[in-house]
């Protein structure tokens, strides 16, 4: 959100306590469930493409790849349902809940703030700004890498999943078009879905680093905000 508006909000609501309630419980719960799902999806996804060394003995004694795939698909369902729930919450929750879905791209000030954040990360400015919600750069990154990325992974993932369930399954009907759209060979969808793993990983690395760094360096709380919901201002 816009720094000015945020500052106003912060001032109005938090003049004394210097804390604002930003992330409502469903958003926080979703964040951590989602993080867990993505971690599981990334690990199991990698192992689907690059399986573990072979198991000795009788085939009926093991279910290694089977288990890995079951974990991948169960987390995938939770991830997808969670994402739908998160969209619902964007509609009914507070305005911060809409930030990762709608970007104020027509606001010059917002772009200015992105620029400011970039300079802050390039050590060009000394004072970071205060934001109640996401800082604009984080918001942009979350939209591009997470929101778009999640839709992308869900579409490609369920397209592949629909192949196993069969073309007549719900997944085949709803997502089978993805395979046709990329040329009709599902090998291509595997490669594209696989690329998504690395994009996600890069987002998560930067995201976690930024969260920890801002927690220490900026003028407001970060990690605890995603746990308690309250944004604390340090000065």
């Amino acid at each position, binding site marked *: 959100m816009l720094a000015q508006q945020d500052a106003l909000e912060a001032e109005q609501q938090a003049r004394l306590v210097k804390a604002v309630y930003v992330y409502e419980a469903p958003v926080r719960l979703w964040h951590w469930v989602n993080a867990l799902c993505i971690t599981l999806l990334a690990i199991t996804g990698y192992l689907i493409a690059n399986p573990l060394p072979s198991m000795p003995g009788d085939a009926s004694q093991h279910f290694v790849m089977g288990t*890995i795939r079951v974990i991948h698909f169960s987390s995938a369902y939770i991830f997808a349902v969670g994402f739908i729930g998160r969209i619902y919450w964007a509609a009914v929750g507070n305005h911060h809940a809409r930030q990762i879905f709608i970007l104020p791209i027509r606001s010059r000030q917002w772009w200015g703030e992105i620029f400011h954040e970039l300079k802050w990360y390039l*050590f060009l400015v000394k004072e970071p700004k205060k934001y109640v919600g996401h800082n604009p750069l984080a918001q942009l990154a979350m939209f591009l890498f997470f929101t778009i990325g999640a839709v992308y992974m869900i579409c490609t993932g369920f397209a592949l999943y629909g192949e196993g369930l069969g073309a007549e399954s719900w997944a085949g009907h709803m997502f089978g078009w993805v395979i046709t759209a990329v040329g009709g060979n599902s090998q291509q969808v595997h490669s594209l879905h696989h690329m998504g793993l690395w994009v996600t990983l890069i987002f998560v690395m930067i995201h976690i680093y930024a969260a920890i760094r801002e927690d220490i360096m900026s003028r407001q709380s970060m990690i605890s905000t995603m746990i308690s919901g309250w944004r604390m201002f340090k000065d």
Partner: protein
Amino acid sequence: MTETFYEVLRRQGISRRSFLKFCSLTATSLGLGSAAAPKIAHALETKPRTPVLWLHGLECTCCSESFIRSAHPLAKDVVLSMLSLDYDDTLMAAAGYQAEAILDDIKKRYKGNYIVAVEGNPPLNEDGMFCIHGGRPFVDVLKETCADAKAIISWGSCASWGCVQAAKPNPTRATPVHKVITDKPIIKVPGCPPIAEVMTAVVTYMLTFDKIPELDRQGRPKMFYGQRIHDKCYRRPHFDAGQYVEEWDDEGARKGYCLYKMGCKGPTTYNACSTTRWNNGVSFPIQSGHGCIGCSEDGFWDKGSFYDRVTDIKQFGIESNADKIGGTAAAVTGAAVAAHAAVTALARAKKKTGIDIPGGEK
């Protein structure tokens, strides 16, 4: 004037007994159950024969080779006597002008009521000069012959997708049939070659029921291309257990473990090999110890090595796979994050950021 299929078959010396056997065989191979056999017999006895014209474009004739090796001699005899009557330049007795005259004749006499089966595809570069049929570019013959057809069968990966002659850089601009003929129903029967039993069943279905089989999104008959090799592979228990051939001739290879790590394309290939198999049901590639190469899939020549699981992505202009590109990008990001953290720590140590963190926050 027009004969029924049955009359033609009898004229060809096929006994009624063989004919009825063929009907039950067809009913079974189409998964229709025994009740369908009399219906098929009735249809063949009463329906006027639908002629099939079999054209050859840029191809290697492996589809024909497969077709005439149809496992069941009965099916082969019957179907061949249905087909070879008309036009198939590799199988028929006629040649030259006499043969070409058949095309015109059928076109006129059976207008809108004959089937064209195309093996291979037309190259479009240089006005189609890379494939000449009876002195004319194949693409012209194809368009002409298909103009009055009821339906078209695209035999094999060539006609369906383009196959090897359309692999990059495709110098002759070999083009699959559905991109040239856009106003007719097209049934794709991909594979390099397709399985004989699948071919005969598709033709029989179309001739007996006088309609095209149910097709999937990409125009393939669902009854044969509805599932992947991987879904019905007899090595699947090893896949689920996590038992793989790690390298050729290792212990796992001898034990018949799953060929996933050797680049098996079964998980992305729609075909009936793992159920119907080849050569009278003797075997299929995976059973012989080699992974599926995905020959019935669109563009399988251009999708990286047959022996890699995570295949090269050529779209980026370099030969590299998702793990190499992604792993490098992640490593660079990791290094950047570490460097950024180090600079931050330094700057903080020197208080260069100017943030004066008060000892006691409120």
